């Protein structure tokens, strides 16, 4: 079994996300710095061990590659949203980017919602979520629903909180170990 053969869409996306987060998180958030790195590394290994064997017979499908590429793209866009903030804000605000089955991305931030600089990154075929006081994940889900979009995958800049995880799971989604990524069937 080669390393590619255990990759389902989910595991491939999760590994890509966690691999990237391991690098990115180490330079940023004061509260989750270090913790997120360790969690992400452990989660990557855990997911591979847990899901890998059951998926060992599955070959990498075009769907898996597309999902993984989409996950990596979302992670990159989330980095971009966070990078549009000043250094202090990067430590105190959450960014989320959700892809949808219709091909439109939903961009969101928690609490105060997207800043002007972040909104400037979302010009074009994107939905800009705004739900004052709500977390970024909830804002993105609400925005997708109101726009008639079906969530596919979502990357976030800080670990998903228990309340948002419950909301994601309540909508049929799954939160990856480490809490930096979610997907919907």
């Amino acid at each position, binding site marked *: 079994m080669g390393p590619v053969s255990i990759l389902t869409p989910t595991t491939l996306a999760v590994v890509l996300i966690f691999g990237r987060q391991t690098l990115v998180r180490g330079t940023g958030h004061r*509260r989750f710095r270090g913790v997120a790195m360790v969690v992400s590394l452990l989660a990557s290994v855990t997911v591979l061990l847990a899901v890998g064997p059951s998926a060992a017979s599955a070959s990498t499908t075009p769907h898996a590659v597309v999902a993984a590429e989409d996950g990596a793209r979302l992670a990159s866009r989330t980095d971009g949203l966070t990078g549009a903030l*000043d*250094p202090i804000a990067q430590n105190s*605000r*959450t960014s989320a980017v959700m892809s949808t089955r219709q091909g439109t991305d939903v961009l969101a931030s928690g*609490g105060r919602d997207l800043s002007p600089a972040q909104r400037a990154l979302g010009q074009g075929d994107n939905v800009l979520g*705004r739900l004052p*006081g709500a977390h970024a994940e909830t804002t993105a889900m*609400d925005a997708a629903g109101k726009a008639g979009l079906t969530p596919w995958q979502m990357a976030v800049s800080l670990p998903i909180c228990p309340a948002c995880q419950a909301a994601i799971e309540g909508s049929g989604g799954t939160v990856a170990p480490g809490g930096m990524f979610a997907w919907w069937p």
Partner: protein
Amino acid sequence: MTGEALIEYDEAALAARVARLPGAERTLLAAACAERLMPLYEWIAAASGGAAAASVRSALDLAWSASTSREQAEQAQLEVEELVPDEDDEDAPVDVALVQNTIAAVAYALRTMGSHDAQDVVWAARQLYEAADYIVQREAPNQTYIADLEQEAPIQLVLRGLGSAVEDLESASLTQLRERAQADGDALLALFKAE
């Protein structure tokens, strides 16, 4: 930008203008940005029972003072950055966004004292613009944003304030610079209450 009132928020132009300022004036410009947010912050802190307002005020006073040492500024900057609330904190005030902007602006003013980095001044100005945007967007229905920001009174106020602050550096005394910033801050608070 040459010091006159801005007609739009252009960070690149602001950065270029700040880069031509001497280091001490950069700090004053950043402090003038933070000062314009203090009335909002103090009002929110008083309404939410926040006890940190006095320490943030003291930190900003350090940024205004020519006698503040680099070590004092660095220590105060570190302390004040610790006060920036996370937007998702359960006990954060409703308008936590404005608290974030104010404390961050103070922190960037103190950073500027040590670094004289033009980018730190731009970050301080960014806080002011973001705060005005936040006040404007409170009027938008959920899942929508008001797009034509430059027509909105809070945005116009901060753009005029940024322009006049740069101008004040060249022509006004330190006292005048600070008093104008305080007056603009009072005006921004009034707009916040009126929106």
